[in-house]
C-alpha cells in the first residue's frame, strides 16, 4: 500500500516537475510547482514526519507559491507565452542533466547505506525542544540567526520593492 502510494507520488512529482520547467505558460508553471511541493509534503507524511509536512504545506505551498503567483500576476499577462531557450541548448542541457543523474545515481547505488530499521515517530515537541535548546546539540543559535535573517530579508524586500517609488518622488520634488 505505502509502496504504491510512494510510486504514485514519485511519478506525479517527476511529471509535474517536468511540466513546471517546460510549460510555456507562467501561471501553469507555478501551479505545477505547487503540485511538486505538495508531493514532497506527501512524501514527508509517508515517512512519518508530519510536522515537516505541515511546514512544507504552509510555508511552501501556502506562502511561497502565493508570493510567486502574486509576482507573476503583477509582472505578466496571463496569456503571455514564455520564451524558451534554443533547441540546441535545451538538448545540450538535457544531456548534461541526464549525465548528472547518471553520476549521482551510480554514486548512490555504489554506496551501501547502513539503514536502521526502527519505527520511531518524531514528535513535534521534540523538534521544538531541540530547536530552542541551549544544551549540547541544541539549535538555538541557528534559530536566532535565521530569525534575524528573516527579518532582514523582510525589510530588504520592502525596501527593494518600494525603493524606486521613493526615488521617483524625491526626484520629482524640486
Amino acid at each position, binding site marked *: 500500500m505505502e509502496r504504491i502510494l510512494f510510486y504514485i507520488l514519485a511519478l506525479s512529482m517527476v511529471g509535474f516537475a517536468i511540466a513546471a520547467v517546460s510549460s510555456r505558460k507562467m501561471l501553469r508553471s507555478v501551479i505545477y510547482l505547487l503540485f511538486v511541493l505538495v508531493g514532497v509534503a506527501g512524501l514527508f507524511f509517508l515517512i512519518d514526519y508530519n510536522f515537516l509536512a505541515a511546514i512544507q504545506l504552509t510555508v511552501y505551498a501556502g506562502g511561497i507559491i502565493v508570493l510567486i503567483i502574486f509576482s507573476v500576476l503583477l509582472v505578466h499577462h496571463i496569456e503571455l507565452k514564455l520564451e524558451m531557450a534554443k533547441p540546441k541548448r535545451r538538448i*545540450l*542541457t538535457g544531456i*548534461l542533466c541526464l*549525465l*548528472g543523474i547518471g*553520476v549521482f545515481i*551510480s*554514486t548512490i547505488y555504489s554506496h551501501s547505506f547502513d539503514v536502521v530499521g526502527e519505527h520511531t515517530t518524531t514528535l513535534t515537541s521534540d523538534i521544538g525542544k531541540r530547536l530552542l535548546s541551549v544544551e549540547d546539540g541544541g539549535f538555538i543559535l541557528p534559530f536566532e540567526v535565521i530569525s534575524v535573517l528573516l527579518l532582514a530579508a523582510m525589510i530588504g524586500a520592502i525596501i527593494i520593492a518600494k525603493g524606486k517609488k521613493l526615488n521617483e518622488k524625491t526626484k520629482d520634488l524640486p
Partner: protein
Amino acid sequence: MNISYIILIPVIPLVVFLLLGIFNRKIKPSVSGYVGVFGLLVSAVLSFYAAFEYFFVLGKVDGVFQTLSEKIVWMNFTDSLHIDMGILVDPISVMMLVVVSTVSLMVHIYSRGYMHGDEGYTKFFAFLSLFTFSMYGLVLATNLFQIYIFWELVGVSSYLLIGYYYTKTSAIAAAKKAFIVTRFADFGFLIGILIIGYYTGTFDFETLNNPEGSAILNWASYSFMGLSALTWALILIFIGGAGKSAMFPLHIWLPDAMEGPTPVSALIHAATMVVAGVFLVARLFPMYYFVDDGFVLQIVAYVGAFSALFAAIIAITQTDIKRVLAFSTMSQLGYMMLGLGVSGFEGHSGVGYMASMFHLFTHAMFKALLFLGAGSVIHAVHSNFLKDMGGLRKYMPITNITFLIAALAIAGVPPLAGFWSKDEILVAAYEHNRLIYYIGVFVAGLTAFYMFRIYFGIFWGKDRLYHHKPKESPLSMTFPLLVLAFLSITVGFIPFSEFVTPDKMGFTAHLNYPLAAIASAVGLIGIATAWVFYKKENQLGDIWANRFGMLYKWTSNKFYFDEIYMFIAKKIFFKRVSEPFAKFDRKYVDGTMVGIGNTTVATSRKIKGLQSGRVQDYAFAFIGGAVIIGLIFIYLWT
C-alpha cells in the same frame, strides 16, 4: 704635355647648365641663347687647341701617340676597385672632342634661330649644355665606370630633350621608349662592367687596354658556359653599346626619338650620342681584339652589317623625312660597327678601326648637316612629311645646296667626305670578310637611293599647297649649314690613318682604286635610280611599291618591330607580370597578413561568447564541469 686645361672643356658647359637651370625663369631668352653659345664656343676653341696640340705638336713621342691621363679617386669600392674621375687623352678622345665641339657649337647656333620664340628657350639651352657636358665627360672618361656614369647622363639628357615638347603624347612616349630601351641595354653594359671589374680587378682603360697587361693576357682564366668570363663581359658591353648606337634589335627607339626638336636630333641622335656605342667598342678595341681572338668582334661585325642593311631597307619606304634620316643614321652606325668588326690591330691591318673612326667623324658632319637642313625645311613648311614638300629649291637655295652636298657626301660620291671614309671601311671589309663587303656595297647603293629619294622629294617636283610661302631660314640657321657643308666637303682629305689607329702608330693609307670605283659607281647608280623615280612626279614609285606588295608593307611598317616590342612590354610585362604581381600582393601577401588579423578577431569573437556575463551560461559551465569531474572521479580514478 700639360692636359689639365682640357678639364675646362666639359666644365664650362656644366657651369652653363647650372646657370641656366637654376636661374631658368630669371634669365631673358635672348641672354640665355648667347650664354649657351658663348660657353660652347670657349669649349670648342679649347677642344680645337687641344686637338692641334695633341696631334701636331706634343702628342706623338717616338712615333706613338701617347695616352695621357689625369684623374682623382671619386669613390672606393674595394682596396683595388675604385671609380676615378678624370680625363684621358688619346687619339680617339681628342677626335671625339673635335666632333662633339663642332657639331654642338653648330647646333647651338642653329637653335638660336630654330627655337626662337619657344617658351622653354632657356630650358632648351640648359639641356643642350647638360648634354654637351655629359658627352665630353663620356669621351674623356678614364675608366669603364666613368664612361658608364656619363653614358647614363647622356641618356637622360636625351630623354629630357626628346620629351622637350612635353605636352605632346607622342613625344612623351618616344622619350620614355628611348630611355627604357637604352636602359635595358645598359643593364647588359653594367653587368659587363661588373664582370670585368671582378676578373681583372680594375676599371681603368689604360690597364685594361694594355696588350701586355694582365687583363688581356689572362683573359681565358675563368670561363662560363663555354666562353671565357671576359668574352661574356665584352658581349654584354657591346649590348650596351648597341643600345646606345641603335643596333638591331635595340634600334626601335631611334626613329621615335625624332619627336624631339630637330637640332636635338642633329646633335644627339645623329652626330654624337648615338656614336657612343661605336666609341665604346673602339675605346675597348684592344680587349675586343685580343680576348678570345676577336670572337666578339665577329659578332660586332655581323650585327653592324645586318643593322646597316636592315635600316637602309626600311629607310627607303619611310615618308617622314626625319625618320628616313634616323634610319639612315642607324644604317651608317651599322657601317661603323662593321668597320670595327673587321679591323685588325697592328699597322695597316688596323684600317677597319681607322676607317670606322673616320666614318664617325665625317658622318657627324654630313648627318648633322642633313638634320639641320631637314630642320630648316620643317621650319619652313611646318611638317615632317614628304607629301607636304616639293619644289622647295626655289624658295630655299642655301638649304637646297647644303642638303645636296650632304646627300652626295653620304652617298659616297668622290671627293666628298663620305666617299673617303666609306671606301676605307669597304676596303677593310673586303680584306677580311667578303660577305660583309657585299652587304656594305649593297647598303651604299641603297643609301644613295633613299637619300636622293627624299632630296628630290623635298627640293624638286611640284609645289604643294603651302599655307604661306616658304622662305629661307634666318642667318643663325643657315650659317651652321654652310659651315657644316664646307666641312662635309673638306674633312675627307684629312689623312686620318696618320692619327687614329688601334696601335696608335699611324700608317699611310692608299686609295684602293678598284674598290673605290665600285663603291662610287654603286652610289651613282643609286642616285640615278632615285633620279628616275623621283626627279619628276610620276607613278614609278607607287608601281614598284605595289610590285613588292607584302615586302613593301612590311618594310614601311619597319618589319613590325615596334609592335613586337609593344606586345612584349604591354601584353607580357604589364599584363602578365606586373599586374598579377600587384594583384598578388594585395590579394595574397597582404591577404595573408590581414587574414591573420581577421582570424584573431574572429577567434576572439567566438571566445568572447564564453564570457557572456549570463549567469545561466556560467551555471551551465559549472554544472557541466562538475559532472565531468564527477565522471572522471568515478570511472577513471579507480
